[in-house]
């Protein structure tokens, strides 16, 4: 029950926009990120004097990623408000990013007046049509009195079951018209939505537990679903009881501490060699809220062929989608794992752990400190200087993979990265959203020179709101990840990857009123990092690193973990068959 809203005196006449904002206030919304425009003016008007803080961004994409970052850290929906037409279409990338990574978000878009819909009115875009494949749900509001019900439904839908973005398109005449509904807290009308809290079937868990019996080489795979349901404590119990090693996806980082002796770190395309060896050799794998994404399962025919596959997912449509599991349970990861722990017995995994220990020694993550400053050293140093305590948000590319490898995470919700969509430009604004969510925490954005330039204008937002975000730019003067592919698979025929001529990032930061640091040598890396991390306000650390480095280990797209390489092969590699 939305108490706050319900007790709002309704004597004074309010319009649709005011009803909307009152509802959001009632849900405890703290921030709205957005950028104004004609069709949305009534809503911006309703925000004047509201206790919700409006954060004006410099671009609508920035607003969506900030809302996303806020949502990932708090677990509460992030709210975005933009105008119609181009304002609305600028949110599409951010909506896709949230959808692919199951992030709760509400996007409010202004729209032309109802009577002009479909007539190519100025700044009309069919945004609910455009976004239909990338939202969990959406609404085009046709009646002012429907606003409270729709907002309540959206609020509920976006954060229950498998979370995701919900878009509400609000024609200007609808937000301007007087609200004459009975209540700001009406009944929801979503008879088709019964999936808010699927309770796991006990029988399914019992069946799953039986598969553990007598296994010698179990492996637990922790995905984003585990983070979203706070399954960490339960997973730790399960792993320790079974004596089972744990690996995590890019988005599962931290929910099971990566510093735990049973942790193998991230698996997959650029995962650790030992995690991928475990994947090849295990006799049982349990996915806890991971969807067997193609970054970890490049080739289904060769995936864990000798292992029993078990799958826990809150979303029934993930079962059987990629992997055909031997047993599965639909439900929240935490709830299921808590039950599962009670039903399994400790396993004899001493030999298995010894084998993996051998791989850890044989194929550790490593980098050179003698051939110039490397991205790995910068990130490793950042990890050490911050004692692994920062909320880390990454952009997309080589630096993202190195960050995943070297910035170990010990807490869920402390790692933000665009995993499913792989959205360049995500890292910095998401860090800004995270800093709004956790003002006292140290927030570090680890970004590439390419991706940072896609959304760097939000330095204004950081400056204006005095957000002490640290932006660590890994400047290799390349769209590095694509360059790596061209080097390895396309005869080093570089095409469209050269970023030589980058701006002076320190001066750029200063132009925005943000402090700039610079490093380009292995020797000064740590001292600069210390100064920057201890700096009180926002700052940019421009790390000029060696240009032509590659991320290893690597499993070529479309291949199974058998084909992992730990260093650059001397023979020519065939072009990858996987998607990207």
């Amino acid at each position: 029950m939305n108490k706050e809203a319900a007790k709002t005196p309704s004597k004074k006449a309010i319009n649709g926009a005011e009803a909307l904002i009152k509802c959001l206030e009632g849900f405890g919304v703290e921030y709205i990120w957005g950028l104004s425009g004609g069709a949305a003016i009534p809503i911006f008007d309703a925000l004047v004097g509201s206790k919700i803080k409006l954060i004006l961004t410099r671009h609508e994409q920035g607003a969506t990623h900030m809302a996303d970052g806020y949502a990932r850290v708090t677990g509460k929906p992030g709210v975005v408000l933009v105008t119609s037409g181009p304002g609305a279409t600028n949110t599409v990338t951010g909506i896709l990013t949230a959808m692919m990574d199951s992030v709760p978000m509400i996007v409010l878009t202004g729209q032309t007046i109802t009577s002009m819909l479909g007539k190519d009115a100025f700044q009309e875009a069919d945004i609910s049509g455009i976004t239909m494949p990338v939202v969990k749900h959406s609404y085009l509001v046709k009646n002012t009195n429907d606003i409270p019900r729709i907002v309540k439904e959206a609020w509920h839908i976006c954060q229950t079951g498998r979370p995701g973005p919900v878009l509400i398109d609000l024609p200007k005449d609808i937000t301007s018209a007087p609200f004459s509904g009975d209540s700001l807290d009406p009944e929801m009308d979503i008879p088709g939505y019964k999936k808010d809290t699927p309770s796991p079937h006990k029988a399914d868990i019992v069946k799953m537990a039986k598969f553990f019996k007598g296994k010698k080489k179990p492996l637990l795979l922790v995905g984003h679903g585990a983070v979203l349901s706070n399954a960490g404590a339960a997973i730790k119990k399960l792993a320790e009881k079974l004596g089972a090693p744990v690996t995590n996806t890019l988005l599962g980082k931290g929910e099971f501490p990566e510093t735990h002796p049973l942790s193998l770190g991230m698996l997959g395309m650029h995962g650790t060699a030992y995690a991928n060896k475990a994947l090849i050799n295990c006799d049982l794998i349990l996915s806890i809220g991971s969807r067997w994404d193609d970054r970890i399962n490049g080739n289904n025919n060769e995936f864990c062929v000798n292992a029993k596959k078990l799958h826990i997912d809150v979303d029934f449509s993930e079962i059987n989608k990629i992997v055909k599991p031997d047993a599965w349970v639909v439900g929240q990861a935490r709830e299921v794992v808590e039950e599962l722990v009670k039903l399994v017995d400790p396993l004899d995994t001493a030999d298995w752990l010894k084998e993996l220990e051998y791989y850890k020694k044989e194929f550790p993550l490593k980098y050179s400190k003698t051939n110039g400053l490397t991205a790995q050293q910068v990130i490793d140093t950042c990890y050490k200087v911050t004692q692994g305590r920062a909320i880390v948000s990454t952009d997309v590319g080589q630096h993202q993979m190195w960050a995943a490898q070297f910035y170990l995470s010990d807490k869920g919700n402390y790692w933000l990265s665009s995993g499913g969509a792989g959205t360049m430009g995500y890292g910095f604004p998401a860090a800004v959203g995270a800093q709004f969510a956790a003002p006292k925490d140290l927030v570090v954005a680890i970004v590439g020179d390419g991706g940072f330039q896609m959304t760097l204008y939000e330095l204004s937002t950081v400056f204006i709101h005095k957000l002490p975000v640290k932006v660590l730019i890994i400047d290799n003067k390349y769209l590095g990840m694509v360059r790596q592919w061209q080097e390895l698979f396309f005869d080093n025929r570089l095409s469209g990857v050269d970023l030589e001529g980058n701006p002076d990032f320190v001066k750029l930061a200063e132009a925005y009123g943000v402090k700039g640091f610079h490093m380009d040598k292995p020797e000064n890396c740590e001292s600069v990092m210390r100064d920057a991390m201890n700096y009180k306000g926002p700052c940019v650390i421009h790390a000029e690193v060696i240009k032509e480095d590659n991320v290893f280990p690597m499993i070529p797209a479309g291949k199974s973990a058998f084909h992992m390489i730990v260093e650059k092969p001397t023979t020519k590699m065939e072009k990858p068959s996987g998607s990207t």
Partner: protein
Amino acid sequence: MDTLPLHTISVLVANKPGVLVRIALVFARRGYNINSLVVSPTINPKFSRMTITAKGDLETLEQIIKNVNKLIDVIHCEEHPANTVEKELALLKTKASPAVKAFVAKNARKFHVRIDDASEGCYIIEQTGTTLELDEFEALIKKYGVLEMIRTGKILITRGQEKT
């Protein structure tokens, strides 16, 4: 495409705008071709029934049904087993001729056909039956020359107590 099995999928939906588009997107994205689609009211004005026939492999069908079920405005969606009564209606336009008239009269019982209209030298023949019966009759009457044909697409309802 033609060797793939034809499936009949029944979807109960909330009567909300855009629900048809959302369902169509689930099919289109996975390369499923919709052969026929019927949207019709139910006894409860809040809900509509969609009956869809589509061709494709079983594995994709499982994905489609699960993803349609995930849509907020879908109450439930399932592929229909055999225990149903299914019907479809066709209207065929032919040249009016004694031969056609005789052929329709001869097949009236077997194929549930009758001539609905005769004007300006044309007949409109109406047929109700299963999709298979409609296909069969169409093949037979073709030799008299069919000028136009339109079919409603299949609808079905489960037998006995079970709800569709």
